[in-house]
């Protein structure tokens, strides 16, 4: 009998085994897996392309499986950034890569890939961007890698991986108003720490996840890396299937974890009393409930990013801002995650609500999240941001501060001029 043949497998192990041509895999095994989708962006693709050439490769392994998105420093913020995009664009043309997205055709990579049905359940997706873990929301094995790894994948279509142990997070209970995926993941990271899931798969489940809308799942899976995880993953269900059908996404397989799957740790998180969460500088694990924030005046509010740039996030923020104005002196910046989201928000009056509230609307891209452009902080300034990282200097000057929150809290904070609870605004 092969070792452990009686034991069940987790969804992560099943997807990896299927892509390694093996009947089963166990945590710690080093395996070579086939890659269904390989992703890079304007920051990471140039280095990956260099690697591809240095290996001596001429053609990419499969031009239909490679996705290149210019989203970080676009519209090109300076000459050096323009050169980076030019290099990526030239490579895409030379190789005949159809899934090359730039300018009005682009948007944030982790939003447009699911939205356009380019990734799906059961796939192995690797991307030269740490937030590639987002697609685990669809029941894919999806993980961030560096440029050299990605360059090798472009050439070979394979990657070596160590099978991670899986930590299962069980969410139970009902979500309070103004509480969503962002609060669940911030609370979880606060509980286990920024290395709490180091080298592990983070599997999200439990009764509260059943019925949970996809945008919440994307937000949760997106920030798995903030706990050090290799991948975040949800078992696909009817909600996943509906989303995949609506987006005409690929269906490599609807895997679920066996009842007797082996977990390195199981964490139960009841949500009944959970308030909106705020991560204080300079760690996503430095989390407090919004009622315990105290008085923290802010200079800037940013709503957007691969974490919270979804249509539903904008709708939630607009519902808080409707008929109100950002406080005097507050810079409110809103960046929709994709052109499709932008257009829908425009048609439904959501963008109008933002502009009436005093917001600046940016083009779909990563924006100020990583301190690239479109809203950099000066020394001593504070921002509330719906993004994923609040490290020192993340959004600008090393003496600036970033507080992470959900879109409703960010919107309320813009009106209040300090970090606040949307429930304070009820009139």
């Amino acid at each position, binding site marked *: 009998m092969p070792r452990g043949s009686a034991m069940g497998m987790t969804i992560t192990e099943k997807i990896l085994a299927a892509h390694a041509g093996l009947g089963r895999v166990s945590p710690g095994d080093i395996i070579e897996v086939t890659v269904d989708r390989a992703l890079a962006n304007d920051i990471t693709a140039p*280095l990956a392309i260099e*690697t591809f050439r240095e*290996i001596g490769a001429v053609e990419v392994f499969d031009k239909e499986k490679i996705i290149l998105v210019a989203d970080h420093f676009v519209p090109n913020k300076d000459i050096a950034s323009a050169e980076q995009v030019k290099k990526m664009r030239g490579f895409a043309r030379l190789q005949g890569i159809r899934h090359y997205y730039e300018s009005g055709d682009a948007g944030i990579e982790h939003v447009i890939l699911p939205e356009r049905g380019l990734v799906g359940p059961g796939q192995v997706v690797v991307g030269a961007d740490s937030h590639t873990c987002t697609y685990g929301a669809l029941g894919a094995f999806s993980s961030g890698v560096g440029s050299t790894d990605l*360059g090798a994948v472009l050439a070979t279509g394979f990657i070596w991986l160590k099978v991670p142990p899986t930590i299962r997070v069980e969410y139970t209970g009902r979500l309070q108003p103004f509480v969503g995926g962002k609060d669940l993941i911030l609370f979880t990271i606060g509980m286990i720490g920024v290395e709490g899931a180091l*080298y592990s798969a983070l599997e999200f489940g439990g009764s509260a996840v059943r019925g949970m809308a996809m945008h919440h799942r994307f937000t949760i899976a997106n920030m798995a890396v903030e706990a050090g995880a290799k991948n975040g993953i949800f078992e696909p269900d009817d909600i996943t299937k509906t989303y995949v059908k609506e987006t005409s996404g690929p269906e490599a397989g609807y895997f679920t974890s066996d009842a007797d799957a082996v977990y390195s740790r199981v964490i139960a998180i009841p949500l009944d009393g959970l308030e909106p969460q705020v991560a204080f500088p300079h760690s996503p694990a430095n989390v407090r409930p919004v009622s315990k924030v105290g008085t923290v005046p802010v200079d800037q509010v940013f709503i957007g990013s691969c974490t919270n740039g979804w249509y539903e996030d904008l709708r939630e923020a607009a519902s808080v801002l409707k008929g109100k104005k950002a406080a005097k002196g507050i810079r409110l910046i809103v960046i929709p995650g994709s052109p499709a989201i932008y257009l829908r928000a425009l048609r439904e009056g959501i963008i109008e609500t933002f502009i009436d509230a005093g917001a600046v609307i940016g083009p779909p891209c990563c924006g100020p999240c990583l301190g690239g452009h479109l809203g950099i902080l000066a020394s001593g300034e504070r921002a509330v941001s719906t993004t994923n990282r609040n490290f020192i200097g993340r959004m600008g000057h090393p003496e600036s501060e970033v507080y992470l929150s959900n879109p409703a809290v960010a919107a309320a904070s813009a009106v209040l001029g300090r970090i606040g609870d949307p429930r304070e605004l009820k009139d």
Partner: protein
Amino acid sequence: MTGDKPGKIWKFGDDVDTDLIIPARYLNVSDGKELAAHCFADVRPEFSREATVGDILVAGKNFGCGSSREHAPLALKASGIKVIIAESFARIFYRNSFNIGFPLLESSEAARALTAADRVTVDIATGEIKRESDGAVFSTHPIPAFMRELVDAGGLVPYLRKKRGGT
């Protein structure tokens, strides 16, 4: 790589993220030397001026967390850092480093004991770390065999070229 003269230590704490190693505003280039000029620009501005070939970086837990930017290990390698010794490493940083032939050693013992005032010799092959002042030897987790092959080859690119060449 063995028997080198002892290296100077740059000491850091826990959870050093890749935004600290190389802030995103410098990511519009990919060249190691250009990146090295901005390494730790926000928290240790003296690093880019003073780090020299053979220096050693010692840190706490979860070194290299955050973004997948390979520019972080590239900048450190181009700064002359010979090896990083830490209690633990974030996983993407770990892969990226070995992929560019930049060795990392995990040792809680050494990471806690060594200070910026120490000088150490490090044998990458055996993982032995020796402090010059008192001859103290620190043990490390051995580098997995597959990763050793990568370091020996000089990184993933030469490793794959060798494989493709069939030699």
